[in-house]
Each structure stands twice: as C-alpha cells, then as structure tokens.
C-alpha cells in the first residue's frame, strides 16, 4: 500500500509538472504576441519590442517558464549582487521589490544620465541620493550596473547609454530616455504563491484568486455533498431493481437531466424560481464578501443546476456497477448461502459496487469543475470558473494560468483522494 501511495504521489507531481508545462507553452507561446493585444495595431515594432522587454517576454520560453514556476529573484540576485526582498508599502499595501544592501532596502533610478540610489524609509517612501560606484565593466568594455528599479524589475543600466524605452500609461505609450538595457521583471513564481499580475485588474492574481477559490470550493463542496450520496443512493436503488419500473424511472430521468445542458437547466431555474416565483435568489449577487454565508440561499439555484446535470451521470455509473456486482459469483454465493436480500446488498454488494464509481466520481470532479464554469457564468457566481472564463475572454494569461493550475490541482488531488479511497475499499490493494 505504501508503494501504491508513493507511486500515486510521484505520479501526481509529474502530472502537475507536465500540466504546467503544457499550460504555459500553450498559452504564452501559442497565443502569439501579447504586445499586439495590449498596445494595439498602431504600435511600432520598436515600441512593441521595448514593451516586450519590460515584461521579460524577450527571454527564451524555457527561461520564462522557469521564472513563472519558481520565480526569478534568485536569478536576478546573482546579477545584482544583493539579496532581493519584498517589502510592503504601509501606505498602499502593495508589495515592492528591494535590494537588501547591508540591511538598507535600496532601489535605483536613472535620471538624466545620473544614477540615483533610493533608500527606503520606514513609512515606505524613499530618499534619493546620488549613487556612487557599483558600475562594472562587461566583456565589451561598457560600464554597466545591475539594480532594482522602481517598477519591480531587476534591470541593467549602461553608463552614458540610457536606452530609449516605451512606457505604457493609461493615456498611451510614452517614450523615456535613461532606460535600462535589460529587464528581469521580478516575481516569486507560482510555486511560491506568486502567479504574477493580472492584466485585467492590474493587481496580483493571487489577491483576486483566493476569495474566488474559496467561493468555488463552497459551491462545489455543497453540490458534491448533495449529489454524491443522492446519486449513489439512486444508482444503488436502480441497480438492485434492474429492469423493474423503479429502475426505468431513475435511469430515464437521470439520462434526461444529464443530456440537458446545464446552461438550459440554469436558465429555466432562474426564470421559474428567481423571477416568476421569486422564492430564491435568481443569481449570485455578492453584496458583501461573505454573502454566501450570510445568505446561503444564494447557493440554491447553482447547486440545483449542478445537481441536475451531475446527478444523473454518477447515478448511471453507480447503477451499472451495482448491476455488474449483483451479477457476480460472490453475490450468487451470498444468496445461495441464504443471506437475506438486505444483507446481500448492504454487506456484500455495496462495498464492491462503490469501488468503480468512486474512482470515476473522483475523476468526475473534472466534469464538476467544467460544469462549474458554465454554472458560475450563468449565475454570475464570483468563483474560479467564472474567473477563468473572464480571463480567457480577456486574454489575461497570468490569470488563466494560475486559475487553470488551481483547477488542475483540485482535479488531481481529488483523483489522488479517489485512489486512496479505492485503496481503502479494496483489500486487494490495501494488503498487497
């Protein structure tokens, strides 16, 4: 069993890694030049190149992948020569990157050919001093300086050759002199909880994502705890009554619901219960961050929609498994042993019948999440699915990557749990 669990965990880690690679390359490489999307068609090639450099997009794809996954401060540290740390600005609450120069948090700034050292004060502001030294001579004989700029990049300036860079402002691109030659936009990386900045909201993805993950987990959790016992119960009921009217009713109804797309079910639930009858909230309006806890009825229609679609599927799986088990030789043995029917079902059949569905149910969490996207969109539910959808429409790649990784992680972890549950249910593996 230990071997099985270890294998599962190793496989899970490899899977996550593969997923992250696939995701990153599909989105960042597949989607083409993001600068066109952001700067528009009128931007000149130089403007685009400059902008791409500022985002670190001129680095090779593998390098960006590593940066994205585990951050690049460690890489930048070697260039800058000081430890790089983040510090929160007490006034704005925003995190910024600083170099720790002998205990003094420091940034640099180039102004009219002069390099200024900015020393951080306790209130978050900084004082500027004319910088002295720190320039190095590179192989080509140019004087260069690596430091942290005011926009959270590790940058390399070149003495006397301030690059012309194009800075994006709300009013458009602005040309600036005194720019650095090379940028490393500092980030901690996904694994260290920093998926980057959302292009859509301009804030760290993690800030928006976390409450949404919570909302989704609540919705999915409630749906799951309603769907699963009910579906298993119905499936078992249908399975032991194979071919009888009860089985037919359950099977046909569940097929009907499964085949009706959730967006249709959702729309009609909204109209009937939310608008015509006005007995349940039509959509998920969060007038406060904890709205679902203050008014749990907000969950009613989304959960009902998910239930309608998912219930049938799991019930059908369970039924099939139950039918198969009820047909098996050991059930025959139990019956021939003269065991009462209820005992045959509860003691002999259910445990075996649940083994197949449980792994499938856990795989089915994928579907549940898929369903969540649609349900969250219909109900305007501020969860992960809706977030992915909005990000995908917007092309907010940092957000999609992080959110998709979260869904994948949820899916893989539930699968792992499913495997473990299977192990516990199945003594063949438990005592292997």
């Amino acid at each position, binding site marked *: 069993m230990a071997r099985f669990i270890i294998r599962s965990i190793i496989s899970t880690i490899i899977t996550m890694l593969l997923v992250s690679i696939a995701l990153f390359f599909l989105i960042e490489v597949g*989607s083409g030049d993001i600068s066109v999307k952001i700067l528009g068609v009128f931007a000149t090639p130089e403007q685009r190149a400059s902008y791409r450099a500022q985002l670190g997009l001129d680095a090779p794809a593998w390098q960006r992948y590593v940066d994205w996954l585990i951050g690049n401060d460690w890489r930048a540290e070697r260039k800058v020569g000081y430890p790089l740390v983040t510090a929160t600005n007490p006034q704005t609450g925003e995190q910024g990157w600083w170099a720790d120069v002998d205990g003094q948090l420091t940034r640099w700034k180039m102004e009219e050919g002069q390099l200024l050292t900015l020393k951080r004060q306790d209130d978050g502001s900084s004082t500027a001093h004319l910088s002295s030294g720190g320039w190095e001579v590179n192989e080509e004989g140019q004087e260069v300086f690596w430091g942290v700029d005011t926009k959270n990049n590790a940058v390399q300036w070149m003495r006397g050759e301030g690059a012309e860079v194009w800075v994006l402002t709300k009013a458009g691109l602005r040309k600036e002199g005194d720019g650095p030659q090379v940028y490393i936009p500092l980030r901690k990386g996904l694994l260290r909880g920093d998926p980057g900045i959302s292009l859509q909201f301009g804030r760290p993805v993690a800030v928006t994502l976390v409450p949404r993950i919570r909302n989704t987990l609540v919705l999915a959790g409630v749906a799951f705890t309603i769907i699963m016992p009910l579906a298993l119960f119905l499936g078992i009921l249908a399975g032991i009554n194979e071919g009888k009217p009860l089985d037919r009713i359950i099977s046909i109804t569940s097929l009907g619901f499964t085949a009706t797309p959730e967006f*249709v079910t959702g729309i009609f639930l909204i109209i009937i219960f939310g608008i015509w009858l006005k007995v349940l909230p039509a959509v998920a309006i969060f007038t406060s961050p904890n709205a679902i806890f203050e008014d749990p009825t907000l969950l009613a229609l989304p959960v009902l929609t998910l239930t309608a679609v998912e219930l049938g599927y799991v019930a059908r799986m369970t039924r099939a498994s139950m039918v198969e088990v009820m047909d098996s030789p050991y059930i025959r043995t139990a019956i021939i042993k003269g065991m009462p029917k209820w005992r045959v079902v509860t003691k002999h059949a259910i445990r075996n019948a649940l083994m197949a569905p449980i792994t499938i149910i856990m795989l089915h969490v*994928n579907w549940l999440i898929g369903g969540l996207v649609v349900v969250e969109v219909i109900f305007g539910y501020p969860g992960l699915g809706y977030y992915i959808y909005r990000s995908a429409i917007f092309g907010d790649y940092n957000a999609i990557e992080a959110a998709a990784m979260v869904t994948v992680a949820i899916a893989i972890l539930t699968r792992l749990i499913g495997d473990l549950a299977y192990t516990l249910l199945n003594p063949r593996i438990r005592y292997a």
Partner: protein
Amino acid sequence: MAVQSMTTKRQPSRWEKFWNTASIVFESRVATVGMSIVLFWVLVAFISLFWTPYDPNASNFTQNLGPNTTNLLGTDHLGRDILSRLMQGTQVILLKTRLPGSDISIPGGVAIWGVLGSLSLGTLLGLNAGYRGGWWDQIIMQVLDALIAFPRIVLYLVVIAALGQGDLVVILAITITGAPGVARLVRSLALDIKTRDYIRAAETRGESVWYIMFREILPNARGPLLVDGMLRVGYAIFAIGTLGFLGIGLPPPDPDWGNMVNEARRNIFANQLAVIWPAVAIASLVIGLNLFADGLREELTRYQK
C-alpha cells in the same frame, strides 16, 4: 468428415453481411430508439443542405413569434425562422466544417471531426501504451494523465484563449480533450487483447509491432470504440453547445445550437420557446446517441458471448 460440411453454402453478399451486422441494432429496443433519433437528425442535416423552410439567416418575419402555421417553431429575436435555423444548426455539428479565412467547407461536422480526431490520436497512443507497455506505457500514460487532469471546459477555454475562435480550434479542443479517454479505453482493450493467443501467434510469426497493433488488435477493439465514439459525439455536441453558449464557440452568424440558446435567453421573456427548441435539439441528439451507444454496447457484449 461430417456430411453437412460438404454441402457448400452460398457466400453471403457484402450487403447481407452489412445487414447482418446492422441487424444487431434491432435486437435491442434501446438501440433502435436511439438510432432512430440520431438518424432523424442526420436526415434533417442532409435535408437542410438542400432545403430549409426559409433562409435561416434572413430576418423576414416579425420578431419573437410563437409557433404558427408559417413558422412552425416561431421566430427568434431577429425575426428569423427558428425551424430553419435549427435545421441549419445540424450542419456544422454533423455535416460540414468551415475552414478559416475562406468560404470553403469540408464535409464532416465539427463534432464528427473532433471525435474522429480524438479517436485517431487516442487509438495511436492507447495501442502503443497498451501493447508495447514498459516505458512507452509509462510515458504515454503520464502525458495522458496530465491532459485528463484538465477539466474539459477549462481546457477548451485555455485552447481558445491561446488560439482564438474558429471551427478548427473547436475541433482541436475536442480532439485534445477526447484523446486521453479514448487512449485509456484502447489501452485497456489492448492490454486485454494482447493476452490472447492469436497475438502470440502473430508474434511467433515475427509480425511487426505496427501490424500487430493495427491489424491484429485494433479490429477487435472496433465495437467498444464505436460505442465510445458515439458517446463522444454526444459529449462533443454538448461541448459545442456549451462553447456556443459562452460565446466562444463557432463564429456567428451561422446558427449553432448553443449560440441559439445564448441569444434566445436574452429574449426569454418575449419567447421562452426559442430557448426550448435548441435545448431540446441538443438534449435529444445526446440522448439518442447515448441510447444508441448503450443498446449497442449491450448487444455487442451479448453477441460476443
């Protein structure tokens, strides 16, 4: 030598063979019902190629009419005939795929190509993983595990976010999301079939790996693959509907059922039926495929026993 074996029987014609095979469908009431529904839609699709009651994209009528004698299913919010649009909507699923940047369509709908794509890719991977085993299996399954870990819709969204909208992208998305499932199925079938003695026989003849995979194993996986493919067409239709509903599916204006639902829901207070029709169309086709597949699976197992 037994006497009866000397009397040579007339060889059955191809048509008879086909009919014999097809007739197993009629053995099952479930499969018959399912096939009827599916055939109905296929028929509708073919008819719509040549005839629809009205131009599906022309706004010739009053908006949001209920069913009436002129427009049997009513009209939508733009005064287009819903029946015509519903009929036309079958084409893009079942009959033709638009190539990007041109008016050229290739035969075979998006759902069909998507499923064929996942069947081909999945079969290739599944056969290699199942038959060759060892490292092939480890690596292929690991990659498939990664793909399977993506919630379907999320993968669609990611693919579309990366590559943009279009028929081909939807096909690609269906292929990618479907392939792991097919591969797992084919792998398990291959693992089973490869223990059969006729595979040993082929190996002892020194047949190549590809011959064994594609000529010896694959033909015996036909039945389950067919059933699986049919279910997958159902999923694909569902997925196309969902993408259409989310507004990221097949580009307008040609009707696609999910998109019809999405457009109609904005006008749902004026015309509830406009949502119902495409919803019923999706559901019935999916149910039809499910029943067909279920019945067929049952009959195939019975047949093989």
